């Protein structure tokens, strides 16, 4: 059973403005019976002011499709066409107190019916770019068409990238198998093979000059300092010896119980900035000459 809000149920059980309108002068029809939902939106528009005097609907569809249609007619009555076009599908969903992710397309259909009706009134032709696939990510309501298009347009090759571009897979992560299948399919189209391993880091070890390397190390240290200073501590770069980076923890940071955690975080940032595995080691002494060889 869907977890419909009370408003959705109310608009489904007692739909507003339902039924045909004999003197409508703007009619929008969207959906199809094969998809399981279809909507005819009828408006009576005052020609001079383009004000919507009355609105009604006929809908073939589920509870939330009927509720979305009912909500839409209530929201746009009294508005001008231009004002009405500002109503987004999210506005319809919000008006209804939210919709389950699987049902967001019902609000999209309402919004599209409105665009279609306005086009009909203005004598334009409304072309929808609407294509919908199977719902993959339930946390963020992202469907397969959206994911495939994004993979194609951006040459993506990992689940992580798909999440960064579309949010899909960024929640409970149960849909990662589905995302991998889409990746495999689209990558096969461009002659590549999907591999579940993360993409190799862009910077290869040894590629940096010594100067660039030191600069990046300093940048990471500088980035970390404000937070530490706020906690009455500080950090200073002491020396770099191959893959070992020596730092000195100062003030409250010195001997702090969280020192290991702080250094762990900094070490992780170093690894990312340099594209190689390095170790961040705290030292008490400041003079580099006293360091172990």
């Amino acid at each position: 059973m869907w977890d419909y809000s009370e408003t959705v149920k109310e608009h489904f059980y007692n739909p507003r403005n339902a039924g045909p309108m004999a003197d409508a002068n703007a009619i929008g029809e969207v959906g199809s019976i094969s998809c399981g939902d279809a909507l005819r939106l009828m408006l009576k528009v005052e020609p001079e002011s383009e004000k919507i005097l009355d609105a009604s609907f006929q809908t073939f569809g589920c509870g939330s499709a009927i509720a979305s249609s009912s909500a839409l007619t209530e929201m746009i009555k009294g508005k001008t066409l231009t004002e009405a076009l500002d109503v987004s599908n999210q506005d319809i969903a919000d008006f209804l107190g939210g919709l389950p992710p699987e049902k967001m397309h019902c609000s999209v259909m309402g919004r599209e019916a409105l665009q279609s009706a306005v086009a009909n009134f203005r004598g334009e032709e409304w072309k929808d770019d609407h294509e919908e696939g199977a719902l993959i990510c339930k946390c963020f309501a992202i469907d397969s068409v959206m994911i495939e298009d994004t993979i194609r347009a951006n040459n993506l090759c990992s689940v992580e990238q798909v999440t960064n571009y579309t949010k899909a897979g960024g929640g409970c992560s149960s849909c990662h198998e589905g995302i991998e299948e889409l990746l495999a399919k689209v990558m096969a189209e461009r002659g590549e093979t999907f591999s579940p391993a993360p993409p190799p880091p862009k910077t290869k070890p040894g590629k940096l000059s010594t100067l660039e390397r030191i600069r990046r190390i300093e940048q990471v240290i500088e980035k970390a300092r404000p937070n530490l200073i706020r906690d009455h501590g500080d950090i200073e770069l002491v020396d770099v010896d191959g893959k070992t980076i020596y730092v000195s923890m100062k003030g409250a940071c010195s001997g702090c119980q969280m020192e290991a955690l702080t250094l762990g975080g900094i070490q992780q940032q170093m690894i990312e900035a340099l594209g190689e595995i390095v170790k961040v080691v705290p030292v008490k002494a400041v003079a580099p000459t006293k360091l172990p060889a």
Partner: protein
Amino acid sequence: MSALPPIYLDNNATTRCAPEAVAAMLPYFTEQFGNPSSMHSFGAKVGHEVKAARASLQKLIGAEYDSEIVYTAGGTEADNTAILSALKASPDRKEIITTTVEHHAVLHLCDQLEKDGYIIHKLKVDGKGRLSLDEYRKLLTDKVAVVSVMWANNETGTFFPVEEMARMARDANVLFHTDAVQAVGKVEINMAESAIDMLSLSGHKLHGPKGIGALYLRRGSRFRPLLRGGGQERGRRAGTENVPAIIGLGIAAQIAREHMAFENTQVRALRDKLQAGILAAVPNAFATGDVDNRLPNTLNIAFEYVEGEAILMLLNKQGIAASSGSACTSGSLEPSHVMRAMGIPYTAAHGTIRFSLSRENTEDEIDRVIAAVPPIIAQLRKLSPYWGENGPITDPEKAFAPTYA
């Protein structure tokens, strides 16, 4: 919810666990907590009762030996075990025969196996959901590892000729599995006289508890376990037995056997009354499936030009519980694969409602449903752009033709 008591007509989804079964289970959560494998008195008593429960289930399906029953966590595990075992036992055979209308427990497993390189033959059905045995016969070769065909369809109740198909498979030296989750407890089954090698059943479909099912495995059938570990179920399904559920299923099996005749007379009569009552009062509606050859408790009606979820919500408001093959109830865009396989047009497939009865339903309840349905359909058709004053809009000039299809 209305003030009237609710009416439950969704027994193919799950049933109420019989109170006798619940009562019998309770001691196994408290005093009788022992592990039947243990070598002490805590375990011994429990082991004895598990044996009795197994015998009761054996009797319900007419199995020759009680060791032919392997308890699982449910119908899905039994289905997966049967098919994967057959593949493992015959690694040279890379083909599976099944049907387009199986339960997802079989169909989605087969889809995955197809990705892994197996060849899946899905037998098609006609408009009434019937198979062609000629098509089946041609596919039965020595490349086929297993045939998996359901006994009765969960959506329409339609029976498949599994006994005949199993004999054909045996003649071709191919293993035969049937998902009998909807049939066990509702129709007579006699495995001792059958050619079926493996049969899946589920406790909660026959007034037993959830989380328990069984795979009937004919003695001598080649088998490879899905779960390995301890020696439970004679090494065929590792893991400590779900003792309370096994006990509950034993009681449920006994009660089901006692009600077998009732199910096929009284329950069937109520189902037939419901069908006749609704179809007499609602135009543009028809029963789907092979109506002369189906489960006694199942009725699936397609209401044209209205959508199933909307019907269910209005039924639910009056306390009536049923289910639908519409796309919206599942969150997918396609209506039920069973309705699509039968070629039911979209105008009707989205409006299919399944009423599945049980021995607990009364004639008063059926009368209430017969009275409730027609106004609900009329109310939704009034909202539908595909419906005119008195029927579907057929005049192409006035027909609803939305922007995209």
